[in-house]
């Protein structure tokens, strides 16, 4: 006996109410998902399996769709290059002349800088390895600004790695899977990046809002910025190395300071993923603690320091906003090297620490 012939044959389902109830249930489910979402954190586990699966499948699909666009762009560039070769050649010659002065200055400054580093025994930033990738999909709406790059965990990309175009910083990796990485752009509403004004050293937090020019928030001090000032990453928080180019400061019509991004000057097709690890993440605390610190008094005996248990793996700060993580591993170690403050935070662990200068010997007594 079918349902239509049974006792429920006269039952009429109020479809309007049923549709409303279904919508209400869907709203509750979506609300629960929104409350549990933590995409902007730097925890790898926050990037769920569903996102990884879609990225892994959508990466190749978007790559295929992006190929004709890429070919068209290359063809247009070729035609433009043919017709504007003379003016381009003239412009590039002038640029070479301008850059030669900068090159000479850079060589001189590098030489002086290396001498200072040697004299002071500074531990400088290590060479950061990088991975090149192609952007295959992008989201440019007001509520999410991300890009999908065609490199992933197989090349050592990790959550938190900074990503640059040939012009400057564009964001950081927030999700990694095999063959694809999700990059949260500086313009995304969830993006917070510690930056500094190069001229004054004033710190700020670059806060995305879905528009092309993110805000410079928490800018303090007397005349901290002027229009055109260079904005660089400050390295605070340990997520980004210090000194990556971000953009220039501009004043918005509402009086707030914003950054005009360097990366916005050209299409972002290829990117570099910096496999950056902060000093606090690469430091081997066991090795640091194994060497005895210098004696407190000249000629004294070295102080014995209890060796803390070595961490199994380097951990990463969950969020730059938390304030921890930057060199926190080193700071937590009871060792004199841990007290190197800002430089320990931004420096690297690639080079061995400079030898501790010997204690000053007392001057010999004058002989009569």
């Amino acid at each position: 006996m079918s349902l239509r012939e049974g006792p429920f044959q006269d039952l009429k389902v109020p479809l309007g109410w049923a549709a409303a109830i279904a919508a209400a249930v869907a709203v509750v489910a979506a609300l629960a998902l929104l409350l549990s979402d933590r995409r902007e954190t730097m925890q790898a586990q926050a990037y769920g399996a569903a996102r990884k699966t879609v990225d892994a499948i959508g990466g190749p699909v978007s790559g295929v769709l992006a190929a004709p666009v890429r070919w068209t762009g290359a063809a247009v560039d070729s035609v433009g290059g043919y017709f504007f070769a003379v003016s381009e050649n003239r412009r590039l010659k002038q640029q070479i002349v301008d850059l030669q002065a900068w090159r000479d200055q850079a060589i001189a400054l590098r030489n002086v800088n290396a001498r200072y580093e040697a004299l002071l025994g500074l531990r400088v930033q290590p060479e950061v390895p990088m991975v090149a990738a192609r952007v295959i999909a992008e989201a440019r709406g007001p509520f999410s600004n991300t890009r999908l790059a065609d490199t992933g965990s197989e090349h050592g990309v990790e959550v938190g790695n900074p990503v640059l175009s040939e012009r400057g910083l564009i964001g950081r990796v927030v999700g990694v899977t095999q063959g694809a990485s999700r990059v949260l752009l500086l313009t995304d509403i969830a993006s917070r990046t510690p930056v500094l004004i190069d001229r004054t050293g004033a710190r700020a937090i670059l806060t995305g809002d879905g528009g092309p020019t993110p805000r410079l928030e928490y800018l303090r001090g007397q005349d901290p910025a002027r229009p055109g000032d260079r904005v660089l990453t400050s390295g605070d928080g340990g997520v980004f190395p210090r000194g990556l180019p971000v953009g220039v400061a501009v004043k918005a019509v509402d009086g707030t300071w914003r950054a005009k991004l360097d990366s916005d000057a050209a299409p972002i097709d290829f990117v570099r993923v910096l496999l950056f690890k902060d000093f606090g993440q690469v430091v081997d605390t066991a090795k640091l603690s194994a060497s005895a610190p210098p004696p407190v008094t000249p000629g004294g005996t070295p102080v014995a320091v209890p060796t803390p248990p070595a961490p199994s793996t380097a951990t990463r700060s969950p969020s730059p906003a938390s304030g921890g993580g930057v060199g926190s591993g080193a700071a937590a170690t009871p060792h004199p090297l841990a007290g190197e403050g800002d430089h320990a935070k931004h420096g690297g662990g690639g080079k061995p620490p400079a030898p501790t200068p010997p204690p000053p010997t007392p001057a010999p007594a004058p002989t009569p």
Partner: protein
Amino acid sequence: MSLFHQAARPLNPLSWIALPALLCVLATILLGVPLRLWGLSLPEPVFALVPAFAWAVIRPSVLPALFLLLLGLFMDIFWGGPLGLWPLGLLAAYSLVLANRAGMIGQSGVVLWAWYAAAALTAETACLLLSMLDAHAAPNLVAVLWQYLATAALYPFAHILIQRYEDADVRFR
């Protein structure tokens, strides 16, 4: 079988729900291509608002809410946004149309376009407020406006869908 029974036969969910949803997914992927012409990026309209509006106008049903939830989740994942944002935006627009569909049935295309624009505004406003709560920051209103205009321009697709299926089930005229 009488003519009445033929007209009252339920619509095939594959044709009026699943197929438009699939087309929205494909259009979203296609517009995700990183193309920039003369310094300008492609717009990023919300294609899923087209079926969200049309489904509510054609007839009330249980399935559209589920499909809107799935479509919104796909958009959140594909665009890398917070999970649950666009399902709520789409469902807000769908609920608005569903609650007022009695006043829309039989209206001209211009009036329906105005209703569609109101639904799109509802979705964008819901996403704007939810984003502010989620990220503790205000999204750029100009960017929101651009997305709203690009989405509002998609009404002709919703009109095609409505014209195709609104007479399929006369019980809901």
